[in-house]
């Protein structure tokens, strides 16, 4: 606000009067815009290639696409014959796609709930700790898994669940249970996947909530304490209401992405073993496996488009809701 004021005082760059605006346009504005366009150019090119060209490819599922070397990608795309909705018929009648959709949504709902409860509880406990130094140490240790590559995470999971693994050889004998072949028993994997999700992301989420907590003035707590509020009451009536905005925004962002699964997690932790697909296949891994492992371009592209369109609609609905609740935090 202050910046705007001072700028308008010296009469530059703000549409304060018609005269100034006209003078500006004739002199430096065009040159400056050229400079800005030059700065934007590399980014625009990459976005075009990486994100906007593939959008033309939404035609693929409606066509019987086959690649002809002499025509290139776009030539082959436009010259391939139309097949209408055939690929989608196959897709929506396949049981795999249905279970992948259900898995994606159910896991995401669980993740959204846990990512709300666990980091907020941890962050509040950490901020109440006497020693700030200890709290920082805990944060550092819990943030570390976020930086471990997903391939390495698959090794970590393997170290626990393989046949010579820690659980099989060290833990189960304690309970007198004979060896379990985890990589062929889908019923164990929801718990494993939820654990590795929390392991990877909790440190990250804690930091966001600690930042939000540090924005709350201590005066609120002092006033509450003077009025005789216990710690629990302070958390209930001061902390949680103050965290509401952050929590709502993060949750709605996550809800907007409910149709997008975490490919890295679901591909690496269960090692993409097909016996486990009933509980570990999500739309993202389904699309990948259809294309890379089965080579079914039409089916994979149809599933990809289905995911993109439904995902996009959900984002718009979420944004509409956010706008109603708190227009400042709306995405667009």
């Amino acid at each position, binding site marked *: 606000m202050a910046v705007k004021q001072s700028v308008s005082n010296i009469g530059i760059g703000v549409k304060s009067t018609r005269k100034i605006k006209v003078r500006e346009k004739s002199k430096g504005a065009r040159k400056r815009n050229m400079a800005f366009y030059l700065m934007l150019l590399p980014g625009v090119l990459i976005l075009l290639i990486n994100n906007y060209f593939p959008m033309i490819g939404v035609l693929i599922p409606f066509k019987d696409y086959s690649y002809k070397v002499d025509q290139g990608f776009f030539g082959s795309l436009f010259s391939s014959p139309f097949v209408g909705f055939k690929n989608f018929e196959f897709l929506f009648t396949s049981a795999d796609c249905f279970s992948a959709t259900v898995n994606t949504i159910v896991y995401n709902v669980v993740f959204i709930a846990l990512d709300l409860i666990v980091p907020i509880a941890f962050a509040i406990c950490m901020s109440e700790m006497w020693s700030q130094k200890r709290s920082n140490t805990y944060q550092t240790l819990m943030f570390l898994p976020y930086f471990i590559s997903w391939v390495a995470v698959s090794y970590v999971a393997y170290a626990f669940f393989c046949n010579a693994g820690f659980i099989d050889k060290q833990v189960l004998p304690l309970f007198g249970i004979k060896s379990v072949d985890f990589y062929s028993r889908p019923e164990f994997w929801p718990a494993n996947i939820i654990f590795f999700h929390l392991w990877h992301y909790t440190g990250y989420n804690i930091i966001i909530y600690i930042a939000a907590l540090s924005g709350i003035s201590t005066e609120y707590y002092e006033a509450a304490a003077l009025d005789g509020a216990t710690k629990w009451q302070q958390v209930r009536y001061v902390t949680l209401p103050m965290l509401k905005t952050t929590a709502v925004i993060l949750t709605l962002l996550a809800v907007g992405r409910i149709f997008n699964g975490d490919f890295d997690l679901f591909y690496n932790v269960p090692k993409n073993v097909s016996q486990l697909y009933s509980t570990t296949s999500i739309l993202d891994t389904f699309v990948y496996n259809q294309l890379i492992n089965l080579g079914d371009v039409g089916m994979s592209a149809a599933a990809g*488009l289905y995911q993109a369109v439904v995902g996009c609609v959900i984002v718009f609905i979420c944004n509409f809701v956010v706008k109603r609740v708190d227009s400042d935090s709306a995405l667009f």
Partner: protein
Amino acid sequence: MDKAINKKSYEFNKISARSNIIINLIFILICILFIAPLILVLMVSFSSKQSLDAYGYQFWPAGFDITAYTYIFRYSSDLTNAYGNSILVTGVGSIASTAIIALYAYPLSRNNFAHRNGFAFFAFFTTIFGGGLVPWVFVYSQFLKINNSLLILIMPYLVNAWWIIIMRTFMKQSVPEELVEAARIDGAGEFRTFFSVALPLCKAGLATIFLFCLVKFWNDYYLSLVFITNRHLYTIQYYLYSMLDGINYLLTNSNVPADARRNLPSEAARMALAVIAVGPVIFTYPFFRRFFVKGLIIGAVKG
């Protein structure tokens, strides 16, 4: 005086000593739970073959041994090659990505750039809708035809809409409009203003983006998974990935003598590879943590 009162009131509102101890104990347990999986991998990599065969993976192996590491370093020229590829891709990719993001974010942060919202949406729209995996793969492999090259390991990750938004927010906060106008009045062009005025003021933001890029490029296996079939182009993460279903390649490599192959501690060797692949990240993490935290907080304020 004021401080003393504050301190006193803070102390009276502290949690009790007993609660403090309980909370600390809980967090120590949680931290052990979080770090233990990594320790297990480290310990298995130092286990002897006999101990692994007899007792499985243990936190405190019955027999310690470093043969896994000596085998890897002696017989795997592929490992050094993959490490080299990773360093090259990570270095070039991170520098290019930070530069492109800063260049894109700067005009968006300027109030006098008329089309800033249009270009912001151009970047942001990519997070809402995408063409999907299939056309994305085809654009690179059939249109640009750069699959099986190091370029494919860099190009798709150069621009990221979230990082542009974070960088723009950072520039808005740390580059005062007055300073930019002053530079303009002194006759500096836009590029000169960008390099000599804006960039020095957002070093912290650049460092954050750069570090996020480093981690992203170093940890990436996905681009290799989709696009790379040539062994010479494997990065360390993809090399690690290719070893997950058996360390067969090491075993069939003709450089490795037959008796060495027989005695290869393959389980330990795989875990040793994992340690080697994540090592650089873990060792540099303590120094960089505060930058990540800072970047996260900026991003969270207006994500």
